[in-house]
């Protein structure tokens, strides 16, 4: 195989010769041309992988996984799994056909048999998979990638289906892109200016800001990663807020790393974030700009409401803690399907704290292992879905056929209570 410009280690050569089995050899035969295409000079060792290929897109994804398993595939680094296309704990909620359901489950099983942890979450970083600062990892799933790079300071390229498991089976990844310090320099500065204090303290700011930043970065032409720097966020910004920001930016503009000055670990100062260089461009983010981004997240302007969906990325225990008192004051209307997508560890914690029963009694439906935009779980094929997640807002129209309304957590809960869209316009006033 042509490997021009790519230096292989002894261990790589042995693997390519089949000394570590057919699956590792096949995985390396896929990794090497990709490393060459990306201009990597060598491969590097990784210490963790997160695999997105477990989500069914078609029979070929299953063929690929079965082929690796049949060839004796076993992951050689700790590997977590992203969402599948099926809720294994609540099979009764699946609305699709039997054959697809069977394929979706089989695909999840095949990856587990290769030694991956059956976590089935898009927020592995809130389920105990937290690679340390500086760790070389191979993660797929856009929101997990941006969180790992930005918030944990671990290092991953934007991996996706197929290459993720190839890295996990070989323990190797191309040494290029965001794995290397020089490519992690922040380039475009987004400076928050004149944001009203109440909005600055509300979690709704983060998905909206992320959506704006992602769209602006996605529109940039030219070489290299679009790495934004953000200034002006409050120092008490929490992890769930950064999660929402990253997920939004990765949806609208393929952002894989952002720096929030004074908050994220590679950005103690603006100088740190830019590695001593000047930002290539400064973009002022004011209230009107944020309002425009917020408006882009909704596709319908009607009062009608059929579904409220929360939890993309998967809802954390802290987010449930914020949701519970709101729901107790404003329980959902019986006509509104109120869904929260989360992961198994949070589900167990809800049970342990005695929170699960009351949530169910209020009419909340919990989804684990998957979510409403990647699996057929909604009871309606048309209508209006409201969410506080920019990622749900971005993918709902295309993936489910429903119209979408974006709002804050409180707006979602109170809308579900009223059975029609409820707005807190004061939040967005100067």
């Amino acid at each position, binding site marked *: 195989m042509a490997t021009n410009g790519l230096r292989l280690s002894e261990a790589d050569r042995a693997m390519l010769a089949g000394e570590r089995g057919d699956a590792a050899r096949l995985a390396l035969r896929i990794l090497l041309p990709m490393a060459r295409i990306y201009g990597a000079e060598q491969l590097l060792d990784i210490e963790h992988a997160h695999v997105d290929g477990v989500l069914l897109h078609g029979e070929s994804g299953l063929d690929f996984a079965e082929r690796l398993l049949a060839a004796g595939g076993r992951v050689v680094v700790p590997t977590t799994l992203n969402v599948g296309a099926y809720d294994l704990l609540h099979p009764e909620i699946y609305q699709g056909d039997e054959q697809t359901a069977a394929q979706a489950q089989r695909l999840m099983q095949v990856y587990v048999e290769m030694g991956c942890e059956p976590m089935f979450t898009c927020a592995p970083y809130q389920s105990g998979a937290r690679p340390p600062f500086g760790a070389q990892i191979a993660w797929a799933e856009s929101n997990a990638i941006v969180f790992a790079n930005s918030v944990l300071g671990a290092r991953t390229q934007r991996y*996706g*289906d197929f290459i993720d498991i190839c890295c996990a089976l070989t323990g190797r990844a191309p040494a290029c892109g965001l794995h290397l310090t020089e490519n992690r320099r922040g380039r475009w500065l987004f400076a928050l200016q004149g944001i009203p204090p109440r909005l600055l303290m509300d979690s709704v700011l983060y998905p909206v800001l992320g959506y704006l930043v992602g769209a602006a970065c996605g529109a940039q032409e030219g070489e290299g990663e679009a790495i934004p720097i953000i200034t002006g966020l409050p120092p008490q910004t929490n992890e769930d807020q950064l999660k929402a920001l990253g997920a939004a930016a990765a949806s609208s503009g393929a952002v894989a790393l952002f720096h929030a000055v004074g908050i994220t670990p590679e950005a103690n100062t603006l100088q740190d974030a830019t590695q001593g260089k000047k930002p290539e461009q400064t973009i002022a983010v004011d209230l009107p700009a944020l309002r425009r981004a917020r408006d882009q997240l909704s596709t319908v302007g009607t009062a009608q409401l059929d579904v409220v969906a929360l939890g993309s990325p998967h809802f954390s225990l802290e987010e449930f803690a914020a949701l519970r008192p709101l729901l107790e004051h404003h329980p959902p209307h019986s006509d509104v399907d109120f869904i929260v997508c989360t992961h198994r560890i949070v589900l167990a914690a809800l049970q342990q704290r005695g929170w699960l029963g009351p949530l169910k009694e209020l009419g909340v439906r919990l989804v684990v292992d998957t979510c409403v935009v990647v699996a057929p779980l909604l009871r309606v094929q048309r209508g209006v879905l409201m969410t506080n997640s920019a990622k749900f807002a971005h993918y709902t129209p295309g993936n489910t056929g429903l119209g979408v309304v974006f709002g804050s957590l409180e707006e979602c809960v109170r809308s579900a209570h009223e059975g029609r869209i409820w707005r807190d316009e004061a939040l967005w006033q100067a």
Partner: protein
Amino acid sequence: MNSSFQAQVILPGAAAGQLLVLSEALSFWGGVDPRSGDIIDERHPQRGRNVAGRILALPKGRGSSSASSILLEACRRGTAPAAILTRELDGILALGAVVARELYAVRLPMFTLNATHYRQLRDGRWLRIRDDGWIVMSDGCGPAVTKG
């Protein structure tokens, strides 16, 4: 007169076929139906055209990393392009083609063109691509006749 130029080889392979030139970037995920090869992205100018068996030229890919899955699925179903030419390197599409080669022994050659050569591509013309990236584009509406 046929025109000819050199492309950079991303994934080698010879190919011949009719050009389908897209005027905008396209995400295969949500943009191409792998069952038919039809372009289904509602906002794309070439919506409704079909990529199967064509030499597909597009400025670049777009969006989701799941595009490699869709390209692989198209390779499995025989609805993939005969070759892909891009102006900017697209690793996600290349990955789909690399896996197709290993999994289904389907060869989907891929090349990048510089901006000058990319601009010379004309929708509907016939192209013959050599393994080393030498491209001959027919002047008329029939296949280009070349030596070597």
